[in-house]
């Protein structure tokens, strides 16, 4: 297994991105009477990115590809653990404001601690409570950094 295919896919994604940015930047003013407009800089950056994407594609297609690292693809368990972290972050983004920091983080900590490792129930409870209510107390009461209180006003 080599890195040829991953770099070919990356090159194509970058080329598409460059094309998208070029089209979007041409909708902005490219040049004004005083010099470059808002579209000037992004347009030329998209051109350079497109060029680099082509070079990457050529290197991947014509050059001698690097061997693929053994850990390039994770195990099923690895992807599940990663998925758990991503799901927890997405859920945090969605419910942090309506539910409040304490309840959201309590749920996130419990979920992640139970998913990512095997800990004693007391440890899980203490870390979850400290990471949610403890951190809230530290930031809101001591450091005066506002965090969402949520519907329950916590």
């Amino acid at each position: 297994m080599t890195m040829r295919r991953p770099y070919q896919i990356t090159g194509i994604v970058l080329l598409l991105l460059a094309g998208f940015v070029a089209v979007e930047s041409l909708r902005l003013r490219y040049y004004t009477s005083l010099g470059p407009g808002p579209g000037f800089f992004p347009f030329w950056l998209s051109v350079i990115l497109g060029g680099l994407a082509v070079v990457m594609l050529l290197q991947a297609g014509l050059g001698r590809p690097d061997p693929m690292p053994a850990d390039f693809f994770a195990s099923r368990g690895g992807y599940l653990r990663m998925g758990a972290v991503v799901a927890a972050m997405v859920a945090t983004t969605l419910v942090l404001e309506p539910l409040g920091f304490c309840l959201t983080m309590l749920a996130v900590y419990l979920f992640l601690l139970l998913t990512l490792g095997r800990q004693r129930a007391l440890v899980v409870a203490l870390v979850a409570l400290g990471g949610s209510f403890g951190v809230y107390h530290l930031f809101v009461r001591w450091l005066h950094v506002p965090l969402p209180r949520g519907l329950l006003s916590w």
Partner: protein
Amino acid sequence: MDTFGLLMGGFATALQPTNLLYAVVGCVLGTLVGVLPGVGPAAGTAILIPITVALDPTGAIIMLAAIYYGAMYGGTITSVLINVPGEAASAVTCLDGYQMAKRGRAGPALAVAAIGSFIGGTVATMGLVLLALPLTRFALRFGPPEFFGLMVVGLSLVTGLAGRSLVRALVSAILGLLLAQIGIDPVMGAPRFTFGQMELLDGFGIVPVVMGLFGIGEILMNAEARAVQVFDTKVSSLVLTKQDIKDSAMPVARGTGIGFFLGLIPGVGAIVPTFLSYAVEKKASKTPERFGTGMIEGVAGPETANNAYANAALIPLFTLGIPGSPTTAILMGALMMNGLVPGPGLFKEHPQFVWAVIASFYIGNLILLILNLPFIPVWVAVLKIPYSILLTLVLGFCVVGAYSLSNSVFDIGAMLAFGILGYLFKKLDIPTAPLVLTLVLGPLMERGLRQSLEMSRGDFSIFFSRPLSAMLLAIAALVIVTSTFRALAPVRGADSQI
């Protein structure tokens, strides 16, 4: 007022009890995040920015600077004790530091690293004091074309961050510049690439981007691999023997020189001085074959170089406004959040602030030396916490950090998106540092370019007709050409470690 008078004024401010407390807390927190494998100084500093939000600008930057060099030292502890570098610059310390620990000499390894870091950091700060005013006086002559040239030099140096592939480093740099385009256009005020989203009008903040790329990206990597902490090393006495002192003296001196001079050059990266110092010590040794088996010189030199570099890298940041590394880019972002733009104007407009921060560097280095040695058992205890718990706690701090900067869940979503991007970058061996540097420098460069062209009514020859601007652009061209040639030579190691 002369430099000495300004510095004394700075000490008077930095030694105020509250500022002293901020420096102590910053050193402890910085070392703590440095100890956590995978977090590193860049993400660590970014994560801890919210703690400083409530402070006055001087206190906030004193604390963040202390976090910065605390984190640089923290990485050493894990390198020595568990053979896992907290950040890439400490990787070389694993070679002999861990071997010393295995032979029951973890104490002397950590002690020499702390003492070397103190000497290197203090000497580099002296350099900052001596060079600050001459450099800023010189830079105050800059108009927009010269400023543009300077920014191009800064950007050209990201090519120096390329490891095995210049193309991948440039892709990262261009992606950073493109990300910097999102938001209100800096000259005409037109929204760009916002797609009707109010949250994008200010563009992406440096903190969610860095926490995502470095912090969340690393958490995803560790979650995937189920990182398990194995710590079974005993820390012996921290006292250095006479032979240890004799063996370390010259490596510390050479490490200071290497770290200081490379720190002056933005874009070199913290890995280069440490590896260079290791190579120099091996070359200078009468028994080079014993390197890698627990030679104290292999710890003393690189660790000194690391901290000398970390402190010297603040010279181009403070005097010219060029961040040389992702962590200094975050410091730059933190300064800007406090209404302070790094560069020559900083010394002119806010002398009290800037000299207090410089004075705090001396104090911080001393605090770090005093605190680190007795605190080592605490860091050892931290390392015994199961990694799944550490990882979850770090994730929680990332959420607080991303949210609290602008009280918006949008930043948490952005941090997650950049975390996934950071994960993909690591898999594809694309360096993340160029993206962070160009994200910070991009808007400044664009403003310089467009203001210059407004001055010349669209005539590009303005950049070549002014000697200083032409010289800076020539330097940038030279750097790009030499980096391109260097990139043709094979380089070992992964780019994503940079």
